């Protein structure tokens, strides 16, 4: 006797038997990441838009816009909810971008290097997870993430090419930013 736990049928249609909780997290955090990256570059452009690195930053920003658009589409397709923290990432991203740009062109590049390194590592983890789950079922998603990871890696290299490492207190700045990224990833996956 006693109340055995009754599993209630969900109103959501399982899309071809995908692992919804895992995909949910992946898309939500990636969407938040691209949204944040957009805001970081916007902040950097606000300060350094008319400097010599302006075109470089603009080009990287344009690629991030494409990334964000793709994740917007995936979010609707998989019916994933966005993170509640979006308004917060909106402001925090812009402040980080503008703040790092106020340290000069090298500072902005250092910020780019730190963030893109975090994002690349994070995408690699997701690729590993999806490959462990079912490479065939998640082929399209894997393709998207792999392509974006390659492009983020390019941004990372561009940052290094533009003397990111010559920034004063480079390692301190980089560690601090990466810690922030890790916290942002942790939170966006869950809330």
């Amino acid at each position: 006797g006693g109340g055995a736990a009754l599993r209630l049928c969900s109103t959501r249609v399982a899309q071809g038997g995908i692992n919804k909780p895992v995909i949910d997290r992946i898309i939500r955090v990636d969407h938040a990441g691209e949204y944040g990256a957009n805001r970081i570059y916007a902040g950097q452009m606000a300060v350094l838009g008319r400097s010599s690195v302006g075109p470089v930053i603009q080009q990287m920003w344009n690629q991030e816009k494409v990334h964000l658009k793709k994740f917007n589409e995936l979010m609707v397709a998989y019916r994933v909810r966005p993170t509640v923290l979006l308004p917060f990432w909106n402001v925090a991203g812009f402040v980080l971008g503008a703040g790092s740009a106020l340290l000069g062109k090298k500072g902005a590049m250092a910020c780019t290097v730190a963030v893109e390194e975090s994002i690349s590592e994070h995408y690699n983890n997701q690729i590993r997870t999806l490959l462990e789950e079912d490479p065939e079922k998640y082929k399209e998603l894997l393709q998207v993430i792999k392509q974006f990871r390659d492009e983020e890696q390019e941004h990372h290299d561009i940052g290094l090419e533009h003397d990111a490492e010559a920034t004063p207190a480079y390692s301190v700045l980089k560690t601090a930013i990466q810690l922030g990224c890790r916290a942002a990833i942790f939170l966006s996956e869950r809330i």
Partner: protein
Amino acid sequence: VKCQHCPPVRALQASATLRRAPDEHKKEPLTSSSQQHFDSPPAGHQPEQEPRGTHHSYTGQGGQESEDYESEEQLQHRILTAALEFVPEHGWTAEAIAEGAKTLGLSVAAAGMFHSDGSELILHFVSECNTKLSKLLEKEQKLVQLGEAEKKPIDEFLRDAVEARLRMLIPYIEKWPQALSVLLLPRNIPSSLSLLTSMIDDIWHYAGDQSTDFNWYTRRAVLTGIYNTTELVMMQDSSPGFEDTWRFLGNRVADAMTMSNTASQVQSTGEAVVQGLMGAAVTVSNAETSRAMR
């Protein structure tokens, strides 16, 4: 000990125990021999050995469930569905569940599987209603996609969806206030909240919501408010055909539309003002510069 009245194959231990409590004491001598029976035979043989084998543990036979066996969950669903018929008379209680179990040929002790406050019965009902609503909205969407129906404007869509869902309460409306209070018990809140949020999300999904920013939350919060308040109004409504409720619903949806229009108007006005100010500042600074240059 052979059983002369073999239960239908679909019974499993729970219902079997309910049917043959007197045989309980004969369980022990048979367990070991029946376990041996089940180690090797293929699934097809199980139904024939069922009369002796009903005393095996639920997870015996390596935890296999052949297609002929109903899982405990399915059995519970069947009992609860059958019990709904008796809710208008008995309320959301163990009596209704017992009556439901009786109609399926099970013992009234089957109600012992569930909580005495009828939590599972109510949650089951809500879940079934949500599923029905989903199917209805999906069907409507298909008609629109095939061009056989017009796409409704958002306010009409939301109004119709909420009305369709609330109409499912009408046969149980007398006892629904009791159900609402049970759904608010701390023990039930995770489940009832999850059912509510997925229902609201479904409605917005079929309404064509594609927001990926904070609007996602705003829209769902607003619709949840509309749904809950309309549900409460419905409890108090004694007008013919609940017309007061539907009028209330229409007004709330209209309010929400106005609010969102107002919000976007405020935003565009704000942006226009900022641009105006920037333009004025640039003009003044240009004027200063040209005067300084003279």
